[in-house]
């Protein structure tokens, strides 16, 4: 039997959960800032290596008054060590996919409280951005189940969506034999006939494979109104890159799902919360806002200069830095290597910044990785 989380942790989690449960329209910067500082306080206290990292930068809980003064850690750090607030309480460890470099997977440990925080964010964010119309759908998930891949955070999250929002027939469609295309096709036909809308969700590339398959077999679906897609992950590390416009036009052409019902999600192993597109929410509210990822009120995103790491104004492209209250269990401030920019509605993400093509004649890390894979 694992011992209880410390009282101060439990009580902070309660406060954070209360804040998250107030929903997506509840903007209270002061309360957010207050909670962010409390999260930092505990992470500074409990994680010695992070404490030293902050002290080296002259930052202690007493010295700062705003969330944006909290020193962020790079996502790569999780590849060389496990950083959790309470490592002995870790109940679940998620790993990054390591698509770019399979030998280097980042690991993030979650305690009970951390999982609970994540669950609440999944519920709140999806209620607003994925199911703002409260339509009940069958979730068809192009991903393996959490039992198959306990370390994959996407499988965990999709499973929660299934539990919270899915009709009983909802299911995972990647089994031991791989992607069960036939099952998906059958389910889609059933939905067409029965008029019960579906939510197809999974990794972006799974969709692309499915679209390729449908084109080859000349398959087309006219899914009932209310059906939608949720794709996550983008195309990093894939040989083929697909533009968003191409993706949504395929959704319409193959599935009969309108572009407003195609929602992209930015999820990361290092971030407990999820960043959804505003597409459906904005459409249903009749706002027609430009597509962007929205920060739920319990998160913040900054764009920083890739060289100096100084914050950049809206519109300028830089690397994304996220701050997430739900990351209480590890590190709240995370420096990614995703390129993006702030937009009026939230932020845009352009994918992982590549090290760049070789400019000189020296062998690059990417070439080296390629060689290792081939040999």
């Amino acid at each position: 039997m694992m011992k209880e989380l410390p009282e101060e942790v439990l009580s902070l989690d309660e406060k954070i959960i209360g804040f998250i449960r107030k929903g997506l329209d509840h903007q209270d910067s002061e309360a957010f800032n207050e909670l962010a500082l409390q999260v930092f306080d505990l992470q500074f206290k409990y994680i010695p290596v992070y404490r030293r990292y902050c002290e080296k930068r002259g930052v202690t809980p007493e010295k700062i008054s705003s969330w944006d003064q909290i020193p962020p850690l790079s996502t790569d750090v999780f590849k060389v060590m496990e950083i959790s607030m309470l490592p002995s309480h870790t109940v679940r460890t998620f790993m990054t996919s390591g698509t770019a470099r399979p030998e280097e997977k980042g690991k993030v440990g979650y305690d009970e409280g951390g999982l609970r925080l994540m669950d609440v964010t999944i519920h709140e964010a999806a209620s607003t951005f994925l199911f703002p119309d409260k339509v009940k759908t069958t979730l068809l998930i192009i991903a393996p189940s959490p039992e198959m891949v306990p370390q994959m955070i996407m499988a965990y999250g999709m499973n929660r969506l299934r539990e919270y929002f899915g009709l009983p027939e909802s299911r995972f469609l990647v089994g031991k034999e791989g992607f069960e295309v036939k099952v998906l096709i059958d389910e889609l036909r059933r939905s067409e006939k029965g008029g019960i809308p579906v939510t197809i969700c999974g990794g972006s590339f799974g969709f692309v494979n499915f679209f390729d398959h449908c084109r080859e077999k000349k398959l087309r679906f006219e899914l009932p109104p209310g059906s939608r897609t949720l794709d996550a992950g983008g195309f990093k590390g894939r040989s083929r890159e697909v533009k968003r416009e191409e993706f949504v036009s395929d959704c319409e052409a193959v599935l009969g799902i309108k572009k407003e019902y195609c929602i992209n999600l930015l999820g990361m192993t290092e971030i407990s919360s999820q960043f959804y597109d505003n597409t459906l929410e904005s459409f249903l509210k009749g706002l027609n806002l430009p597509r962007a990822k929205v920060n739920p009120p319990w998160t913040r995103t900054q764009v920083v200069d890739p060289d100096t790491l100084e914050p950049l104004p809206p519109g300028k492209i830089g690397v994304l830095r996220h701050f997430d209250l739900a990351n209480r269990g590890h590190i709240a401030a995370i420096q990614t290597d995703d390129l993006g920019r702030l937009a009026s509605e939230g932020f845009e993400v352009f994918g992982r910044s590549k090290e760049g093509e070789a400019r000189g004649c020296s062998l690059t890390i990417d070439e080296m990785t390629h060689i290792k894979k081939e040999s």
Partner: protein
Amino acid sequence: MKIIEVDAYYLPKDLGDQVKDFRTEVVEDEGVAIRLKIPTVDKILIENLFGYLKKSRQIYLSRLPIKRIINILDEASRKWLDRSYPYRELALKTIPVITGFSREVVEASIDAEMESSLGEDMWRALCSEIKNPLYLDDFQYSPELKGYTRAYGPEAIVSIFTQNIPALPHLSFMRSALLKAACLGKGATGEPTFAPLYLKTIEEIDPEMAKCMAVLYWRGGEEEIETAVFRQADAVILFGGIETCASLLEKIPRKVKALVHGHKLGFGVIGRGRLNRQGLEDLAQAVAQDCSMFDQQACLAPHVYYLEEKGKVSPKEFCEALAKAMEAIHVKMPRGKISSGEASAIHQLRGRYELRELKGEDVLLLTSRHGTDWTVVYEKNPGTFSPSPLNRFIRVYGVEDIFQILPILESIGPFLQNAAVAIGDEREMEFIKRLGELGVARITSPGKMSVPTMMWHHDGISPLASLLRWCDIEKKDEIGGI
């Protein structure tokens, strides 16, 4: 906005009207716009150009004495070394904007390339590869053969440039001229301005020789053009990444000789005998020089420096000295601008090392005060070779015994190229022998990694002799020789 117009091509004057249309590409940075004039290349232009180059070569360059050729090339190098030379001035305006390299880095690159390309270097390079440069002019007596022999260069060489190292493309034109071959260079997207300027210099000195040389640009992978180009060439010199070279090699007809200079890795090794207090600063400065030249982007640059433990100075102490030297060089010769991805990669990697250091691991991270200008990392040899993200990011690995690194190097044998070695005791020669066996193509001293001589067997091959054809006269004198 200051606008500089510059040609991203060079065609012999007589062919000026062959180009139907030009497009302009604009590169901007900090108030300077470089307008690159780029001719549209098609199959007909390629065919006409080769006809012209080959004819010019036949009536002029093939008959030009090698000493005269060397004098012309020597004069070109000396012009480029002259700080007031207008084309050098122009290159120093264009290349930093196009490549992001600082002006100082570009200057240092031009100096390094041209200082090693003087008349005496060329003469010695020929002597080293073919013994007697006069073999290129006429039949000469060969004492080994006890008869006469003569060397013939290719009619036309194509050189594909893909990298942005300033002043490097001149090597292919120089080598082609030494072989009395016409040469077409394909400009690199990363830096298309130097080669045309270099050919203008040749034109200034000897307009007839310049008629045997050209630079064009087309998008890599344009089948029709590449097929036409390779069909006309006798030899191809390729510079580029592994994939680029592999895909180009597939298109080159078998009868065409190809010299491939793929992307390579450099490293350095310092033995405990050389890690003394005395000379520490000089040694650190030398290593910093190796890591900073060309912003570490040349294949000559080190990714890793291996330092042996139990010297008078520990590898960690050496890193402190190295960090000071890196900063000093950065002040004199600032690191250039790098892409978002490159900068982000450096921060991410720094993050890993910083956390490991803070966790109490035997790691030391030393960085420039601002941004990503330079990074020095110390750790104990992890047993694998990790390529650097470049742009002045050097790992120093501590090793108990320098011979322990050999199995690691073995695993990347085909990519090894340039090594700085300073062991400082009787093991040095044995160590060098082992590096040679592993595939290392050049061994030099710390501080000299970026300045190979013309005599170097570039990437382990004889860049001149490999492209020659010979005719030997083995007639016996008594039967009636020459």
